[in-house]
């Protein structure tokens, strides 16, 4: 790609290398730069692309534009949301080739993928571990954006899209967890649905979308459709918004990192990106091989194994629903308000600093986080027993 950076008076008489010749042939028939500019919406390039120029020239321009060497590690979370999603998409499509979203077929086909299909275990475990990492990434990203106050103008949209990405990933996890339809997934989805259904307005809506208050074959099928079509589309929109805001307002540059003299190039940046991707992939392969997830037999709606509990991120909510006295909808309302306050309260405090100061907001957030941790621990050690 970086060949375009040097082309010292080669002149028209010199024949192009074959791949650029192919590009030139195509370019006469379709606007490749336009297609490339769509791709850049998903985190490959942050600078605007001139779609009127041929691809070779456009890329030469991108390559020639010096990039500000920014602080890498915090921003890497944003990149990871796109990278891990790509991994999940590829492995997910491969899994869908063999998966049957039916009551009898779900477990049998998952087991078949992992056991009988060559390298099926690998695809499956990569998908699982990628999902775990993705949750961690989107949650950490929201935390870091909050900490670095990236909800302030002009990044409100970025903030809302980050929270939305987190929400979509949790939904993806919730629906995806059910798909193997084994004992643990069935009952943890059942408990999760209990929590969701306890919430006013949202609960009935979600159970309407899923098609029931209890897990049935119908819910399984809808979970599947949500998991493979609807939610990934929402996620793509979220990523598009994320990188769209970046092209408009630039990367967030912490005060000490923005030294314009410390410039890098797109080529270097892309290679860094590839190196990072490789390390991530290697790490995931290691996890998937050494710590594979286990199966616990097909789901049996007629016998509840002891100690069933929802997914870990719902444990705190589960504790509240289990232990809060009074009617169930109070706990639900509490959860709903807590959930809604995550995207809204920071934005509100940015507008009304005199009503809710920044330090207060942070203290509140820390307190809320502590409560969440405690409730999760309580859920892990008490409710599960």
């Amino acid at each position, binding site marked *: 790609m970086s060949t375009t950076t*040097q082309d010292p008076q080669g002149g028209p008489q010199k024949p192009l290398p074959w791949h650029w010749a192919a590009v030139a042939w195509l370019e006469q028939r379709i606007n490749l730069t336009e297609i490339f500019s769509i791709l850049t919406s998903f985190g490959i390039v942050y600078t605007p692309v001139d779609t009127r120029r041929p691809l070779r020239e456009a890329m030469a321009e991108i390559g020639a534009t010096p990039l500000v060497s920014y602080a890498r590690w915090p921003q890497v979370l944003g990149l990871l949301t796109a990278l891990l999603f790509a991994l999940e998409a590829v492995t997910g499509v491969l899994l869908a080739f063999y998966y049957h979203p039916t009551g009898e077929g779900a477990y049998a086909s998952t087991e078949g993928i992992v*056991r*009988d299909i060559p390298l099926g275990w690998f695809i499956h475990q990569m998908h699982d571990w990628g999902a775990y990492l993705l949750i961690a990434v989107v949650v950490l990203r929201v935390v870091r954006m909050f900490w670095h106050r990236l909800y302030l103008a002009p990044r409100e949209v970025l903030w809302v899209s980050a929270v939305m990405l987190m929400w979509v990933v949790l939904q993806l996890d919730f629906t995806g967890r059910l798909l193997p339809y084994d004992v643990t997934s069935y009952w943890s989805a059942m408990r999760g649905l209990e929590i969701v259904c306890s919430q006013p307005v949202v609960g009935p809506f979600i159970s309407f979308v899923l098609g029931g208050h209890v897990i049935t074959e119908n819910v399984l099928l809808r979970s599947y459709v949500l998991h493979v079509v609807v939610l990934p589309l929402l996620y793509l929109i979220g990523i598009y918004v994320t990188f769209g805001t970046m092209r408009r307002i630039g990367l967030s540059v912490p005060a000490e990192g923005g030294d314009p003299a410390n410039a890098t*190039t797109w080529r270097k940046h892309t290679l860094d990106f590839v190196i990072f991707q490789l390390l991530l992939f*290697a790490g995931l392969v*290691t996890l998937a091989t050494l710590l*594979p997830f286990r199966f616990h*037999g097909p789901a049996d709606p007629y016998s509840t194994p002891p100690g069933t509990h929802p997914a870990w991120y719902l444990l705190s909510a589960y504790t509240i629903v289990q232990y809060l006295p009074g009617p169930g909808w109070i706990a639900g309302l509490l959860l709903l308000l807590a959930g809604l306050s995550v995207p809204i309260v920071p934005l509100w405090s940015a507008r009304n600093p005199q009503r809710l100061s920044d330090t207060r907001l942070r203290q509140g957030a820390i307190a809320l986080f502590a409560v969440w941790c405690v409730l999760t621990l309580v859920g892990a050690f008490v409710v599960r027993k």
Partner: protein
Amino acid sequence: MSARAGFARMLALAAALALSAEAARAAATAPVPITGSRVGRIVTPTAGRCGVCHPTERVALESSPHAREDVRCTSCHGGDDTTTDEKRAHGGDFTGKVDRGTVPRMCARCHADEKRMRPYDLPVDQYALYQQSRHGQLLAKGDRQVAVCSDCHGAHDILAVADPASRVYPTNIPRTCGRCHGDTTLVRQRHIKNAYADYLTSVHAHQLFDLGNMRAPTCVSCHGVHGATPPDVADITKVCGRCHTTERRYFIAGPHAAKMAENNVPACIACHGNHAVEASVVTRLASNCEKCHEKGDPQVALGARMLDEYKTAQTEIDKAEKLIAEADAVPMQTEDYHARVEEARTYLREAMTAAHTVQPEVVASFTLRARSVGEEIQDELTHKFANARMSKLGLVVFWFYVLVTLGILRRYRNRRPRA
């Protein structure tokens, strides 16, 4: 609805009632042909006109297949059923209530007649069998308390054996016998066993009543039906062996059979009980011996040895199953192992049967096979697990590859673009 319309309806109803009453009267006065054509006899009520004064009996009789086959009141009780005049009806060969002592003979008039029973494919040996039975023998001696046909089959409402409402339907037989052989004055007066209560606690009753296993034995399976007699001590293995064939075979092969017969010990019953048969329990292999043998006898040790053999094999199989469950969680291909565990369990079950020889060597021939299958599975699975761990060494190769790639990428990254 107006009042007038209501009145008109009532009138119509009254007229209809009057008409139907007339029709009924006409039917009652019409002559009932008893000796007429066969067609005429089928349509007339079997109870004839007896039912006018004996409605309960009539209803009971008409619920029975006897009624359809033209067994009439007069067939058993005599008299004349064409009239309601008591003198004429209860005249002639009228017997009144049939005497208990004559019931079997009376039923036999038809039921021992091969020509009559042939069309129904019914046996005709009941009477002969009954005379051989304890009931029949006592009746012949003038004991009027013993069971006659009507005690089990009912007097008027006799139903077919296949009818679930029948007193002699398999699931109803224990209760029917229990009417006398249960907790009754009869049983207490005569000092006979309360077999019904015992039977209800047995594994046979559990199979029959709780699991609906219609093949489970009831009273008649061992004692006979019409020829009901307690089996002789010498015949007990034969009776039990009708279903428990393999057990009997092993039992006869062992030393118990001859010795028990010599000493007149009731073979199967000595360990298992008669009416209150328990489900098979492994630990009884050891605990049963002391019922007859002194504690510390070498024979008691044999039982302990058999139990030992059994338990060792069982632990091996359990361990194998645990490993299979682990492999299933991976999941690995374990279907073959499931089949082999099933095979081992079959050996174990056979070992229980073989224990009837009371020879530990015979039991061991099965438990050893069960054990070896269990151990084989364990070996193979442990091997497979080890292999799976070894294949993780592939990670090393993978990381080597990753590191080399990293090196190349770094080289590209740090190379200055040529001017």
